[in-house]
């Protein structure tokens, strides 16, 4: 990022709708999606070097706050987005699962880095070979570790999912089947 570049705060794009003098009408889906995607509360589950890259992502140079995620939640009950960054040992698996279960719907998961996505180089007895073996994952960020730009790109992908999610998705049969696959209610 060059030093003299001026970053202007952007306002979220208006969703499709009808507008006239003094009013704007859109569907509830879109209004809720707009609100949700620009106020994600991430829960950082950082276990190794990807977590260090995430700290850079949160800090002033990259500043994740520009995307509405300045408020990290360290309580699963209050967060929307579980960010798993780093190697997850098999012994840690049940802990991660518990954290996911404790999050309130709607919730999203991003697997940052090779280890969280597939076990990475740690193809061994003690390491979980990808967190998608125990919890469903929405976005995978490749890299070992990924640069902050890549993590931001992952967040933007999540925002796209959040903004376009239908209000009834979490009640759908497909979603229930997915949860059942992971032995969750």
């Amino acid at each position, binding site marked *: 990022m060059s030093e003299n570049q001026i970053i202007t705060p952007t306002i979220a794009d208006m969703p499709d709708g009808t507008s006239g003098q003094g009013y704007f009408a859109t569907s509830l889906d879109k209004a809720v999606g707009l609100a949700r995607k620009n106020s994600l509360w991430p829960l950082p589950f950082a276990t190794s070097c990807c977590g260090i890259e995430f700290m850079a992502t949160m800090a002033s140079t990259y500043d994740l706050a520009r995307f509405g995620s300045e408020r990290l939640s360290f309580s699963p009950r209050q967060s929307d987005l579980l960010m798993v960054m780093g190697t997850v040992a*098999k*012994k840690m698996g049940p802990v991660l699962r518990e954290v996911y279960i404790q999050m309130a719907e709607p919730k999203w998961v991003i697997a940052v880095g090779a280890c969280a996505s*597939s*076990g990475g180089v740690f*193809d*061994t*007895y*003690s*390491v979980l*070979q990808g967190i998608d073996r125990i919890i469903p994952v929405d976005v995978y960020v490749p890299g070992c570790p990924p640069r902050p730009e890549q993590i931001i790109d992952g967040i933007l992908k999540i925002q796209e999912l959040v903004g376009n999610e239908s209000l009834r998705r979490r009640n759908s049969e497909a979603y229930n089947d997915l949860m059942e696959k992971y032995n969750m209610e």
Partner: protein
Amino acid sequence: MYPINPDRDQLVVSKLSNRFGNAIESHEVLSDMLCITVKKESIQSILLFLRDDQELQYNFLTTLCGMHYPEKEQLGVVYHLHSFVNNHRIRIKTVTELNDPKIQTITTIWPAANWMERETYDFYGIEFEGHPNLKRILNMDEMTDFPMRKDFPLEDQTREDKDDSMFGR
């Protein structure tokens, strides 16, 4: 650099031979350090003797660790001892059969051996008789394998994405 002291090596060997006789199977100097192989039935009394003998005083257990000899169907334990008083280190090795891997605990001699023996049990499956709390320490409790044994496959067997042709196999 570790100070080499052949006189002291000799002293340890002769004292142990006099005291324990046949229980001392062999001794050699490996990587500048005396290494004595002993019978497993006497391991507790030998280590206690090494600790408490006024001339030797191997008062510190540096570490202990498991060994696996697949061709001999044996498991073993190696103990590293350090005498702070004499600035001298030795290694004591003992082996046990793979199908009945039992060795006396030395937690009665050095309480620090507690976690080391648990780790050795965790990774090699060696049972330390008399250990106060012999259960896995690092791996998850559900695990049934002993991953540092040489017949344990290095790669995770549940990976589906690894195409053998990509790895030249």
